[in-house]
C-alpha cells in the first residue's frame, strides 16, 4: 500500500497512526479524484458554445440527499478508526522506565528518576535521550518557561510541553537506532535550533548506560550538569517544585 508521504515510524503507536494515515488517504484520494473528474468534465463538456440559454435546473433532491448521506457515513467511519487508534496512542500502561522531560528556552533536560542519569543540552548541542527498545517508557513532559513542542518524527507523535502542566504519555519503541527530535512550538529567538536526539538501545545497553552514571566520575558529571541545569531553570518563570497539574 502506498505511504502517502508519511512513514511507519519505530514505535507501536507510530505504526497504527501510519495505518490510519493510509486509510484517510485512500478516502481522500478517491473523493478528490472523483471531484476533480466531475469538475473537469463540466469544464470541458459544458463550455460555452453559443448564445443558447441552458435549462434552468435548480434542484435534484435525490442527488442532494445522496451527497449528504454518503459523506456522513464516511465521516463516521473515519471517526471510528480515529477512536481506536487514539485510545491506543493515549493509553498509559504500567511501566518500569520513566523519563522526565523538561523543555526550556532553548534546550532539553532528560531526567531518569530513581537513577543518577541526567542528560542536558542547549540548542545545537542536541542532547541525546536514551531509551530502551521493546519497553513501555513513560514520559512526564513539562516546561519551565514558555510552551514548547516535543516532537520526534520517528514516533509520529508530538506533545506540547506546557508550563504548569505535566503531560504524560507512553512510548514503546520497536527498533533501535538514533532519531531526530526538535521543538515544534514557537518558543522565542532560538526556536529553530532547539534540537535533541533519541537513541533507542537494547535493554542490556540501557542498563549499562544507566550504570555508567553510578561511578564517581559519572555522579560528578551528573551533579555538575544538574547544577548548570538548575541555574538555567531558575532563570525561568517557575521551578519544577511549583508545578501543579491542570486539566488532567
Amino acid at each position, binding site marked *: 500500500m502506498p505511504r502517502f508521504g*508519511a512513514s511507519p515510524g519505530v514505535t507501536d503507536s507510530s505504526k497504527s497512526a501510519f495505518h490510519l494515515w493510509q486509510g484517510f488517504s485512500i478516502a481522500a484520494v478517491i473523493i478528490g479524484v472523483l471531484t476533480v473528474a466531475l469538475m473537469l468534465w463540466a469544464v470541458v463538456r459544458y463550455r460555452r458554445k453559443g448564445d443558447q440559454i441552458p435549462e434552468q435546473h435548480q434542484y435534484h433532491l435525490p442527488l442532494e440527499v445522496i451527497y449528504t448521506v454518503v459523506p456522513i457515513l464516511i465521516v463516521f467511519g473515519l471517526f471510528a478508526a480515529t477512536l481506536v487508534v487514539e485510545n491506543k496512542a493515549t493509553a498509559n500502561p504500567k511501566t518500569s522506565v520513566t523519563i522526565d522531560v523538561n523543555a526550556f528556552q532553548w534546550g532539553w533536560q532528560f531526567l531518569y528518576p530513581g537513577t543518577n542519569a541526567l542528560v542536558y543540552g542547549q540548542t545545537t548541542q542536541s542532547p541525546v535521550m536514551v531509551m530502551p527498545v521493546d519497553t513501555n517508557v513513560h514520559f512526564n513532559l513539562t516546561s519551565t518557561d514558555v510552551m514548547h513542542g516535543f*516532537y520526534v518524527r520517528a514516533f509520529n507523535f508530538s506533545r506540547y510541553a506546557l508550563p504548569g502542566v505535566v503531560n504524560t504519555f507512553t512510548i514503546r519503541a520497536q527498533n533501535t537506532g538514533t532519531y531526530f527530535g526538535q521543538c515544534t512550538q514557537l518558543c522565542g529567538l532560538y526556536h529553530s535550533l532547539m534540537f535533541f536526539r533519541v537513541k533507542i538501545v537494547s535493554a542490556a545497553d540501557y542498563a549499562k548506560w544507566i550504570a555508567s552514571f553510578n561511578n564517581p566520575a559519572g555522579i560528578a558529571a551528573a551533579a555538575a550538569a544538574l547544577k548548570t541545569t538548575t541555574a538555567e531553570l531558575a532563570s525561568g518563570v517557575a521551578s519544577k517544585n511549583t508545578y501543579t497539574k491542570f486539566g488532567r
Partner: protein
Amino acid sequence: MTDVLDPPVHVEHHDGGHEEHHGPTGILNWLTSTDHKVIGLSYTVTSVIMLVIGGLFAEIIRGQLATPNGTLVSLAQYNELFTMHGSVMIYLFAGPFAFGALANIIVPIQIGAPDMAFPRLNALSYWLYLTGSITMLSGFFTAGGAANFGWVGYAPLSNSLNTPGAGADLWIGGLLLTGFSAIFTGVNLCATIFYLRAPGMTMFRMPIFTWNMLVTAILILLAFPVLTAGLVMLYADRHFGTHIFSVAGGGVPVLWQHIFWFWGHPEVYILALPFFGMVTEVIAVFSRKPVFGYKGMIFATLTIAALSLGVWAHHMFTTGVVLLPFFSIMSLLIAVPTGIKMFNWIGTMWKGQIWFSTAMLMALGFLFTFLIGGLTGIYLASPPLDFFTHDTYFVIAHFHSVVMALVFGGMAGLYYWGPKFTGYLLNEKFGKMQFWLLFIGTQLFTIPLYILGLDGMPRRMAVYPNDPQWKTLNDISTLGAVLIGLSTVLFVINIVVSWKKYPAGDNPWDAQTLEWFTTSPPPHHNFYRLPQIRSERPTWDHNHPNYRSLQHGVHEGVHTLDATEESHV
C-alpha cells in the same frame, strides 16, 4: 409566451436632480462620506494594500528559506516577519476585504437597500480598521521591533517577561481596534439584511452572497467579543500585574488558547464564507444557470456556522489537555456541509454554458485549490494524525491551500463586481495571464510544503541546518511564491492599463441578482427603480422572463433567444 412580464416597480424617477449627492468631493468626500460604496471602496483599496504588504513579508520568508542556513534576515527578524505576515493577512486583509470591502458595497445593492442600516457606524468601522492596521504595523518602527510571538500570540511567550517591548502592545492594540471594526460591521450587516430588504426580497430570495454575509455577521457577533476579552486579559497580564495566563501567579496559559481558538475557529469561517458566496455567484452567472441546490446551499452554510462554534479545541489536540473525541467528530462533520457546497458548485456548472471569463477562471482556481485544502483538513480533525502533523509544514500547507483558495475567490469577486462599483471592466488578457500565474504559483507553493511537513519540517523555522535535504522542496515552494507575487504585480498593471478604458454598462455579464439592475456605478442611493422580485435572481427574471428556475422533474425543451428578449430594459 405564457409568462407576462411584471412591470418594473418605480421607486423614484427623477431626470437628474436628485441623481448626484450634494456633498464634498475628492479627498474631503473620502474623509467624510457615509455612503457604503465610498467606504467599501476605501476598504477595498486599504485591504488590497494589506495583501501586498503581507505578500512582501511572505516573499522575504520564502527567500530566507531558500537555503538551509539563510542569512537574508536574522532569527529575530524572521520571527517578526512570520508573525506580521500572518497577522496582516488574517486580521488586516482577508476579513476586512470580505466583510468590509465587497460585502459593504454589494450587500445593500443586492437586497435593494439605499445604504447600510447605520451609515455613520459603517464609517467608524472603516476608520477603526485603518487606525488599527497602522497601529499594528507601526510595531516595526519601535526599538524592539514588531510583535514576534506568532499570529496566535500564545501565552506565556506573549507576556511582558518573554516579549517586552512596544511592538507586542501595538499588536494587541491594533487587533482590538480592528476587532471592534469587525463587530460594528457585523451589527451593521445584520441590521441591514434583516430590515432593509426591498419589497418582495424574502429571506429565501436573497442571493447566496448576502446569505453568507448574514451568517458571517452572526459569527462575528458570537466570536469577536471573545477575542476582545482575551486581548484585554493579555494586556492586563502584561501591564497591570494580573496572572490570568501565568503559572507563577496561579493562572493557566492554556486558557489563552481556549479563548483565542474559540474566536479563531469561527474566524476561519468568518474568512471563508464570504468568499464561498462570491464564488457561488460567479459560477452561477458564468454558467448561465441558477445556483444548484440553492436552499441546500443555505442550510450547508448554516450548518458550517453552527459546527464551527464547537471545534476550537482541534487546534489544541497536542496540548494533551483537551483530547475529547467530541472535538474530533465535530471537526470531521464540517466536511459534510462543505462537500455539499462543492457538489452544488459542480451541479451549477453541470449542463450550463460556461463562459471562461477571468472571474470564472478564478472561481475554478478556487474550486481546485479549496478541494486540496479541504481534503487535507480532514486529516487534522483526527487526533492521532494531528499529533504528527501539528506545527509542521503539513498544517502550513493545508491552511495556505485554503487561504490561497480565498485569494482566488477574492479575485473572482473583484473581476466580477469591480465593473459594478467602478463602471469599468478590467482587461481580460491580463486577467487570464494573472490567473495562470496565480494558479501554477499556488500549486508549486503549497504542494512541496505538504511533503516537507510529512518529512518532519516544523513551522516557524528560520534555518534548518540539520536537514539540508529540505532545500529542494523549499526552493520549489519559493519559486511558487515568486509566481504568486508576479501575478499580483500583473493585477496592479492590469488596473493601470485598464484605467477607465472599457466602460462596463449596467450588466456586462448577463448577471442575475439585483445589483446588476442598477447603473454602474450605482447612483447615490443605489436605485431609481426596482424590478419585481419573485426569486433570488430578479434581474435574470426581468431580462429572461421565459427562463425561470426549474424545480426537479420539470423538463422543458432547450430554449433559444427569441425576439421578445432584451438583455436590458
